[in-house]
């Protein structure tokens, strides 16, 4: 059952947290990165395999709250098939959308993540929604110099 209107816990978020998509480690993988939320100790490990420069497989293992789990699950679905750099850019757009509270202009890939924008009213939880994306940014940053 859904929470009150101001609740973070919309049905879709609860479902993704309960049954996260792509919650397994990808083996073999071409990339792996971890992200830790220093404020609460929650952790995300993201593994992925690029094929033809695109994300062919991705897995996010999260030890954390419902928000960080659901956000990771939604992230994996949003970025599959994209080049890594484009995935990282998408993360930046998502971050901005949260910080500015804008859901109107979300690119199509991010529309399923719209319910997470609600965290903007709960500033202590913003990093939960961004945790798995940070791992993507780390990977993209690492590969950036090499191309």
């Amino acid at each position, binding site marked *: 059952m859904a*929470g009150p209107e*101001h609740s*973070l816990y919309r049905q879709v978020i609860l479902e993704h947290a309960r049954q996260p998509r792509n919650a397994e480690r990808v083996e073999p993988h071409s990339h792996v990165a971890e992200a830790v939320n220093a404020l609460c*100790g929650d952790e995300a490990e993201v593994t992925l395999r690029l094929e033809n420069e695109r994300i062919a497989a991705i897995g996010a293992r999260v030890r954390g709250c419902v928000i960080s789990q659901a956000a990771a699950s939604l992230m994996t679905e949003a970025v599959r098939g994209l080049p890594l750099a484009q995935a990282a850019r998408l993360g930046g757009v998502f971050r901005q959308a949260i910080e500015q509270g804008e859901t109107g202009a979300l690119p199509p890939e991010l529309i399923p993540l719209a319910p997470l924008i609600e965290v903007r009213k709960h500033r202590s939880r913003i990093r939960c929604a961004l945790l798995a994306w940070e791992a993507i940014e780390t990977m993209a940053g690492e590969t950036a110099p090499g191309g």
Partner: protein
Amino acid sequence: MSDNTENTSNAENPYRGDFPILAREINGHPLSYLDNAATTQKPRAVIDALVRFYEHHNANVHRGVHTLSEEASSLYEEARAKVAAFIGASAAEVIFTRGATESLNMVALGFARGLLRPGDEVLLTEMEHHSNLVPWQEAARETGAVTRFARITDSGTLELEDFAAQLNERTRLVALTHASNVLGTLNPVAELTAMAHKVGAVVVVDAAQTAPKGLVDVAALDCDFLAFSGHKMYGPTGIGVLYGKAALLERMTPAFTGGGMIAKVDKERASWGEVPRRFEPGTPPIAGAVALGAAVDYLQGVGPAELRRREAGLTAYALEALDAAEDVTVFGPPAGDHRTGVISFNLRGVHPHDVAEVLDETGVAVRAGHHCCQVLMQRLEVPGVVRASLGLYNSREDVERLLAGLNRVREVFGVSGVSGGEAARRGRA
């Protein structure tokens, strides 16, 4: 079974009316503020003391000849005397700081670094707050000393045998908390201090969680240094206290220097003024100190016995209800004399932050996370806990709303467990 007559309802609680913020609504519900271990709310008397200071007496202290400065200086020193009386110290042993964290760092920098030699040991406990742990780690790292940790039992009390066993002639300093901000455990500081003194160690006590309960008597504890914060004892933010025995303060080096703490300065060197001024460089948090004095007056008005009686009753009531829920794990000792009203727990299958978030949707304010006690979290083998901590204004309703809120958490996340309603009922049977 706890005695219900001790657990007043809001209507029967004579202190609630003193705290303006309790009139607030949160997400359409009344506020049940159960985050008192993080910071307490402020009674009108404390807020008024700030306003009165700024509207009538504001000036810089020290050296000022004009009337306002004389008044501000007197109020500041009266506040010091009040705090000293509250903890059984003399005024010259009370240094105003920015808070407990700063107090502890001042000892770590100004005293421990001069004291410790390579191979010396600093004894801590597994339940220390980062503010009473990291400064000693740093002091040890810089001096070549070693930190050790006295273990805690599974019920969250200090293992006294282990503490005794770890004390030895290399132990130069013991830093421990008077009460845990997670477990609620009250440590037997007087006994532990006596043991530490036998091996010649200096004892530093973190009283951040006990000063608000009127539990600090430095003469009885006989500790060498003791630290606490104003904002956790119904006083303002930005003010705290370092108590030190007079002889040790004389040996301590000021960590920070500047105006107001010197005797004489020339181009080559400076010499220090007397204690406690020596440790208060720059303009102190004057209004904060005065308002902390008002908080002490307020607590003295309530009386330490009454503070303890109320909290003990409500703690027993809450613990009983939480213990009765089979999906709730409570960390820390059972109800009784050796604990405060800080109650940490986890609800099976739900992350602490999610518990706290849903409780907030019902107007119940608790804290979730590691509570600046990562070493303790490692010991408890949990990433974090939910913490409900009681204050003077809490009543039976607050505990009942916490229990009802946990039911809501179970609903939202679809986790089973003894229904909270039943748990609450059992608790009250």
